[in-house]
């Protein structure tokens, strides 16, 4: 395998890891506050549809992004009403949200565009276009560093850079601010937070609102940057892979980056069977690579490699003492 193939492979790794990373950080905020969220998938899907739909109608991808975030936050709100206000089962609520998004997106797409549950292809301003970083063209010919900068680092859409910037930001918010401390505390011991006079319900709603925003960006990325338009079920299990990455990352932001990059690499390799053959000298089945994130998560969860301990109050609705 030559250097250029490697750069190409890593380039598509970055592109495939971006939605996973955003969704993974979304789940991180939610689960750190004690709200399990298996509805990441549904929120991404809803955001993907509304971003593409609004972008294609208005021709502005930024309005599309806002619509996607709004749709995702609406579903987050539903999750909050069900699991925080009415203290319902968070897992069941997540399942419901996934199905709601899967069904409604196709239903509305068919009603608005009559194209069999897809949006028209996005063109021009309806898509996030690649950004060429400064001097990318100038240094492209420099050996080794040139291709890395020009091909791998430069030439992604703005959302990719936002996703990568979200990692240190998430770390800062969670581990260096008062809000972050309280948010983590509410996921470990909500009673203590309540005793300190801080609203458990308020913090948890704040967490799922952030989760909604990040899922919204992830969904918008799918339909307006990675692809040009919405197709039925286009999130294709990415929400669940993000969930897997979250466990893999042991609910930590930097590890989330590494985990999603790893899972992105699997995705990139799946599309390049020739590279795998060249590397390992044998034919590796694509299905195996597709299943690898799930298998690895099961192994990690089982504690065979390190221990992944979820936030202690995760999944439990908080009932105020009287």
């Amino acid at each position, binding site marked *: 395998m030559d250097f250029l193939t490697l750069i190409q492979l890593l380039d598509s790794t970055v592109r495939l890891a971006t939605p996973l990373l955003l969704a993974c950080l979304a789940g991180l905020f939610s689960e750190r506050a004690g709200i399990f969220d298996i509805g990441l998938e549904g929120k991404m899907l809803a955001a993907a549809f509304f971003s593409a739909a609004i972008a294609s109608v208005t021709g502005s991808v930024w309005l599309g992004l806002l619509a996607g975030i709004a749709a995702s936050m609406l579903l987050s709100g539903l999750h909050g009403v069900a699991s925080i206000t009415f203290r319902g089962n968070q897992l069941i609520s997540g*399942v419901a949200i*996934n199905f709601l998004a*899967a*069904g409604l997106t196709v239903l509305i797409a068919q009603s608005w565009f009559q194209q069999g*549950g897809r949006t028209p292809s996005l063109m021009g301003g309806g898509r996030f276009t690649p950004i060429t970083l400064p001097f990318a063209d100038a240094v492209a010919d420099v050996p080794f560093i040139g291709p890395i900068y020009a091909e791998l680092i430069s030439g992604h859409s703005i959302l990719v850079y936002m996703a990568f910037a979200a990692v240190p930001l998430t770390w800062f918010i969670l581990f260096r601010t008062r809000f972050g401390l309280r948010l983590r505390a509410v996921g470990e011991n909500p009673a203590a937070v309540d005793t300190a006079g801080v609203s458990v319900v308020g913090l948890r709603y704040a967490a799922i609102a952030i989760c909604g925003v990040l899922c919204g960006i992830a969904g918008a990325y799918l339909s307006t940057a990675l692809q040009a338009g919405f197709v039925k079920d286009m999130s294709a299990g990415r929400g669940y892979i993000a969930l897997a990455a979250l466990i893999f990352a042991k609910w930590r932001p930097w590890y989330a980056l590494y985990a999603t990059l790893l899972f992105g690499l699997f995705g990139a390799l799946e599309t390049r069977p020739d590279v795998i053959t060249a590397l390992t000298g044998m034919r590796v089945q694509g299905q195996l690579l597709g299943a690898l994130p*799930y298998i690895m998560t*099961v192994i990690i969860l*089982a504690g065979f490699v390190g221990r992944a301990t979820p936030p202690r109050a995760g999944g439990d609705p908080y009932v105020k003492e009287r």
Partner: protein
Amino acid sequence: MDVMPKWAEVILVPLISLILAAIISALVILAIGEDPIAAVKLMVSGALGSTYGWGYTLYYATNFMFTGLAVAVAFHARLFNIGGEGQAALGGLGVALACLYIPWPHWSLALLGAIAMAALFGAFWAAIPAYLQARRGSHIVITTIMFNFIAASLLNYILVNVLRPTGSMDPATARFPEATQLPTLHEVLAPFGISFSKAAPANITLLVAVLACVLVWVLIWRTRLGYELRAYGHSQSAAKYAGISPFKITMVTMIISGGLAGLMAINNVMGEAERLVLNAVEGAGFIGIAVALMGRSHPFGVFIAAILFGFLYQGGAELALWTSIPRELIVVIQALVILFTGALDNMVRMPLERMFLAVRRARAPKPERKPIEPAE
């Protein structure tokens, strides 16, 4: 002391949830510019208006009875088995192996063999997450979700590389031999003088599903194991104190649950397709969640809810055929049922509880005459 009488708990709460789901579904149909009343009429005539429609309704209902029971059994032990999809897929593999590689002399023997294999494969696929939860402490919901995806990849691999007949492009097994074909409801009912549609896929598996409902009822309410299972579901610490092994309950419950989900394959793989195709389960494993929630995890409730969802499924297919309402409407209805009967249960329950409490207070004798026990 329960605030609500039993009938309200069993009938009123699910009914109100269902009505709420129906109202929102009607609003969705209105919003996409169709007539909800015409849609319901079309669904009823398409799903229940002919023996052909009934044949499809009951065929789908059979699938949902198995997956619904699977989720319900696990719910009793407070385990959320979200992996019915994968377990049913593995059950399909078991059925395919049984039908393809064993020369059965008669369909009845083939049915018994296939039941054993389907249950075995489904149970195996549920046993691994159960073991990981019971011994290694990994969350069963996450593991079963992961196992759904692993099952999909595994079946994809096996169908493309192992079981696909040479020369065929289609990722599916060869057609099962003649001797393994199950009698359809047409053939079952003909001796009784009832003429049932020949074309509909409902088959004798329906009777197996009804039998499974009865057996699950016996298991949960009439056996020692069922008692232990429910005790564990109510309070894990109390059950442990009473000498019930959490490991055993988790394993046994999930094995039964997975076996039930696997049994679905008798219906869709052996009874209908008569070969194993890619993605044979088609989401029935997830519908089991809605069915179990609506049926309040009671086998009879599951039976009724499965028929309702069978009706919705077949009615939805008719809608997609004759109107511009896509089939995905069913997915929306399914989501709403899960939402209202599962996640928003308290929203329906709390006002009802308050109402019943008010009624009881009004009826209760005056406190100064006769002291009443404080309500819990």
